[in-house]
């Protein structure tokens, strides 16, 4: 089905099911229970997870397959956001034209940057992409203010033309009248499940994005990209010019980033230059590595994992910790709470950094490799000598 073999079809169906059922999966605890703070089934977070999942899937097509580490993907994210908000301003709040424009502009942008950057590889490539992205960021903040609205960020004003705006169209981002922020709440016993239009819209796009990346991974083109990663010199000897392939991968991943940026603006009709800053590029690198670069599911997992923990960890404050460790004797409790509160709430970034370091040091294959190792442990089977660069064989496990 869908041009995939049976195994991949099953895998895709599982992913689709998981994505569509996310509002249930992320809401395992009844409302009002002590564990309700671990619930993540609210639209904003789910949407973010899906969006950054798309971003990371795209980044993985470049980094995971070809090994080119780009530190400048945030630029495309920003371009996508700006494109969508401009479409809001010129046409109306329908998200579709904006998303198309976002993909096209970020693709063109990626073509230009990739054409230049891919002349170098390794650290030079990283620095070139970083330089381009920082340039875009600096320009968006200063000279390009007429286009980007500088520090304020681009937003829709009532004085904007919005030529397609109809009489009773919703005044928020929508898809042919279906407002993005509309949601339907389902109460079942103690549980409250929220089904949000924006989330499902993003989820469908994410599934499409995932499907496309699956096809790329399995295609001869994907094979060629892996060849670039494992031995570029040999490719040259074989008489293949790898540049067009890497450039294509770069443009595709740029378009994914643009799409993600556009969806961010579909969530909230705002676009700011800070989305182009290199910390944002760093974030997608972290997500991809944490999940497992070069695997299909890894980047999505990484994105979900980080966005979830970010939300949950930053909510845990000292009072909550006090509550948890109430059973400990006074002095000990204070010490435990003090130590833990350094890593939660405000200290979330510290946890992220540590986690990231540990993964890079001990688990270069990311969470996916961790999962595989644990699975292998249970099967009581010696590690099969699977190649790191081609772990596509068992993506779902």
């Amino acid at each position, binding site marked *: 089905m869908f041009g995939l073999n049976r195994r991949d079809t099953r895998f895709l169906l599982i992913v689709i099911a998981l994505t569509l059922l996310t509002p249930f999966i992320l809401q395992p605890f009844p409302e009002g229970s002590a564990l309700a703070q671990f619930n993540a089934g609210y639209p904003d977070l789910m949407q973010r997870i899906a969006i950054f999942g798309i971003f990371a899937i795209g980044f993985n097509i470049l980094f995971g397959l070809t090994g080119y580490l780009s530190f400048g993907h945030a630029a495309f994210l920003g371009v996508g956001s700006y494109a969508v908000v401009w479409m809001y301003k010129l046409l109306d709040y329908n998200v579709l034209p904006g998303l198309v424009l976002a993909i096209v502009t970020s693709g063109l942008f990626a073509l230009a940057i990739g054409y230049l950057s891919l002349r170098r590889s390794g650290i030079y490539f990283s620095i070139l992409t970083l330089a381009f992205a920082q340039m875009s960021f600096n320009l968006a903040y200063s000279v390009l203010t007429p286009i980007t609205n500088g520090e304020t960020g681009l937003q829709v004003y009532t004085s904007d033309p919005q030529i397609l705006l109809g009489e009773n169209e919703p005044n928020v981002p929508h898809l042919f009248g279906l407002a993005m922020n509309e949601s339907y709440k389902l109460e079942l016993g103690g549980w409250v499940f929220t089904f949000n239009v924006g989330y499902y819209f993003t989820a469908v796009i994410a599934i499409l994005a995932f499907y496309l990346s699956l096809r790329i991974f399995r295609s001869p083109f994907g094979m060629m990209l892996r060849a670039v990663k494992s031995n570029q010199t040999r490719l040259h000897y074989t008489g293949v010019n790898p540049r067009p392939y890497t450039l294509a991968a770069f443009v595709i991943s740029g378009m994914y980033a643009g799409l993600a940026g556009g969806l961010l603006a579909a969530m909230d009709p705002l676009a700011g230059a800070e989305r182009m800053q290199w910390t944002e590029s760093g974030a997608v690198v972290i997500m991809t590595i944490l999940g497992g670069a070069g695997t299909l599911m890894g980047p999505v997992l990484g994105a979900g994992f980080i966005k979830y923990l970010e939300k949950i960890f930053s909510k845990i404050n000292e009072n909550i910790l006090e509550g948890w460790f109430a059973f400990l004797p006074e002095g000990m409790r204070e010490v435990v709470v003090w130590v833990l509160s350094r890593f939660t709430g405000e200290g979330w970034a510290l946890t992220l950094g540590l986690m990231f*370091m540990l993964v890079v040091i001990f688990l270069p294959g990311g969470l996916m490799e961790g999962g595989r190792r644990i699975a292998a442990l249970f099967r009581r089977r010696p590690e099969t000598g699977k190649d790191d660069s081609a772990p596509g064989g068992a993506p779902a496990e």
Partner: protein
Amino acid sequence: MDAILLQILNGLDKGSAYALIALGLTLIFGTLGVVNFAHGAMFMIGAFCAVTLQRLLSLSYVTIDESRTDFLGNPLKIRTPYVESWFGPEAGQAIIDWSVPLAIVFAIPVMVGLGFLMERGLIRHFYKRPHADQILVTFGLAIVLQEIVKFFFGANPIPTPAPEAFSGSFDFGVLLGFEPNSIIYPYWRMIYFVFALIIIGAVFAFLRFTTFGMVVRAGMVDRETVGLLGIDIDRRFTVMFGIAAAVAGLAGVMYTPINAPNFHMGMDFLVLSFVVVVVGGMGSLPGGVLAGFLLGILESFASMSQVIDLLPGINQIIIFLVAIVVLLVRPRGLMGRKGVMEE
């Protein structure tokens, strides 16, 4: 003419910082072959060494003066720093005033120790891993260090003034026969420049004129042969890592009066310093230093109002633009050795 001179002078202090950080980065890359993304964090930690020392020196005890009252009518509390009570008010005040220069002494052991710890504890395990892994792990380390500093010192910049004696500005114009006040230059920036030259000179002299330096230079060229000669090159490279960290730290210490340090200053400088290293030529010490000063001056020229009128926004992107052109046209940089990391 005076405007051009002024821009050159303005570029020198930023250029000095770039040059110092680039020097350390190149030392690490040239010796250990490691791309260290945590080097900016070393710069930042150096700056916070100065802040820490200033806070330590200003630690004070409170005495209550019954004879006077504050504006609420309560007895006036007088804070007296301990150093003032130990060395007398005047000497104590002077010590606090001079805390930034004093922090140099304080920062060297801290930074060298931190460098040792980093190299032995972490970087050593990454020699054989790909550059991408090195970038990633040091990037993670940079985040961790940054967050730790943020936890102890907060997110806001902490003003750390230079000693009173250097707070003024020097009128260069008069010296060179221009109108008075046409070229004024703060004393501290001048000191920063001289300090940077001294440090750079010291590192070069150390590498050029000592046996240790000779061995290190030999190791940079051909590590294997030096190892075969029975020299423990790894240990020397660890020392070099410590020195590189100390150089970055000192650059940070002295930079505090110019720019109040905050926890992300390291990252801001790191991105630019990498660009500087690449422009100078990966692995070339003189190249890194030269490129640092050149780009600093270039940046300051680009922020002249005449230039901005001509090419709006150029001051924001000039460094990156230069880097892109250099990388595309001459990938080994200004002074890079042929064949080193050219691909």
